[in-house]
């Protein structure tokens, strides 16, 4: 990355692997369970969180010297809530179709612990540009896990990817279904999301023993 210094690049690459917000910090699990039954929703959620987290980090970082420490959590909450509501209103006015796709995510974005976590842990103590990169990086790390989970849940649960029937038609019995394959309905339910996240954590920690805590 010629554009970024080594230190800045780490802000983006770290959350993708060894400091992933979901698998290492175990934040944002609730939304990872709620919306990963299909791949498209995972991608939409990843992009929305990225926008909100990057902008919110910058706003908090710009205000970091004037925010009273006693009410900083409330200030963070107000910033993220106002941001999300304004974005939602603007989308409703000018990109109505998109806003309908996002409607269910709005509440989930506001309550996403990763956003408050990064405001508190990073943006309050760092300059806007670095906070921006941190927001992008953490949202990318979050999105990566969401997309992996969404991929497996949609493929094994519905036999589709992004709505395309990649394994054949389960009702007409074509493709894999012709030889007796069945969709696993359990994959569509939230507990399986947790189990998939668990498997990712397992794989990640067995490849990098340093991540294992005593």
């Amino acid at each position, binding site marked *: 990355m010629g554009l970024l210094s080594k230190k800045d690049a780490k802000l983006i690459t770290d959350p993708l692997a060894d400091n992933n917000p979901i698998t290492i910090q175990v934040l944002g699990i609730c939304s990872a369970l709620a919306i990963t*039954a299909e791949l498209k*929703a995972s991608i939409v959620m990843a992009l929305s969180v990225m926008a909100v987290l990057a902008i919110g980090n910058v706003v908090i970082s710009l205000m970091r010297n004037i925010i*009273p*420490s*006693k009410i900083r959590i409330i200030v963070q909450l*107000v910033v993220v809530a106002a941001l999300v509501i*304004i974005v939602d209103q603007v989308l409703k*006015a000018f990109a109505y179709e998109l806003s309908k796709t996002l409607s269910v995510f709005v509440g989930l974005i506001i309550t996403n612990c990763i956003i408050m976590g990064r405001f508190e842990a990073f943006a309050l103590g760092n300059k806007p540009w670095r906070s921006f990169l941190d927001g992008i990086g953490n949202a990318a790390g979050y999105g990566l896990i969401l997309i992996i989970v969404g991929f497996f849940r949609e493929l094994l649960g519905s036999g589709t990817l992004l709505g395309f029937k990649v394994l054949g038609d389960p009702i007409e019995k074509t493709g894999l279904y012709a030889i007796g394959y069945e969709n696993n*309905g359990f994959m*569509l339910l939230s507990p399986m999301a947790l189990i998939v996240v668990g498997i990712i954590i397992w794989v990640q920690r067995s490849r990098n023993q340093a991540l294992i805590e005593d």
Partner: protein
Amino acid sequence: MENRTDKNSYTILFAIGMVLVVGALLAFAASSLKPNIDENKRLEKQQNILYAMGVNENDDSSANFVSTTDAPELFKKYITKQLVIEGDKVTEDPEAYLIDVKKEQAKAKAGLERKLPLFVGEKDGKTFYIVPIYGKGLWDAIWAYVSIDENMVVQGAYFDHKGETPGLGANIKQRFFMDDFIGEHLLNESGVFKGIDVAKGNADPKNENKTDNEVDAIAGATITGNGVTAMIKADLKLYKPYIDNLKTN
């Protein structure tokens, strides 16, 4: 050492200032965008109604509305009458499609007379009666526009929701679910209103039996499906007297 930002007076002033700024910002955004948002909602209703009577741009698998620019014109062309039914009184109202079904349901609960909007569409010599219905799913509101013929056989349906789970309950607005309703009978063999059950164990996943008053449920979306069943039973039933009247006249 106490920081400037740690003082109580500063904290209170900051809080007041923040509330004023954010409040003003949100109020400004809401009021300046409202006309656009209302217009979008109005066009969406027209698109929904047209969709239910088969005026849409569906391709092989996905549900597509007519474009927002064409919607007002097509709406005028295909929707010949917009009726408001109040008890035995039926009046025409060119803005019936703007009636808020949720508010009318609340009126009925409070013991007042409920306005029932009904849209009459003509396409290829066939008459469609399009009914808006409203209910609740797992997380929030669900609603639909169902078009029926004079025998209360469903000709088309458009379902939508406010916040059902993506991939599960949200799939009620997918073609594979909505299209199952086409051809389904709302009445049983003896002509009594029975509705359509979103049934889990109906052993008819291809939906070949159109007179069983059942469509196949979505796995993992039981409560949303029950909501669909309930709103069909409760709201569509109210139109039966009017539809019966049509046949006798």
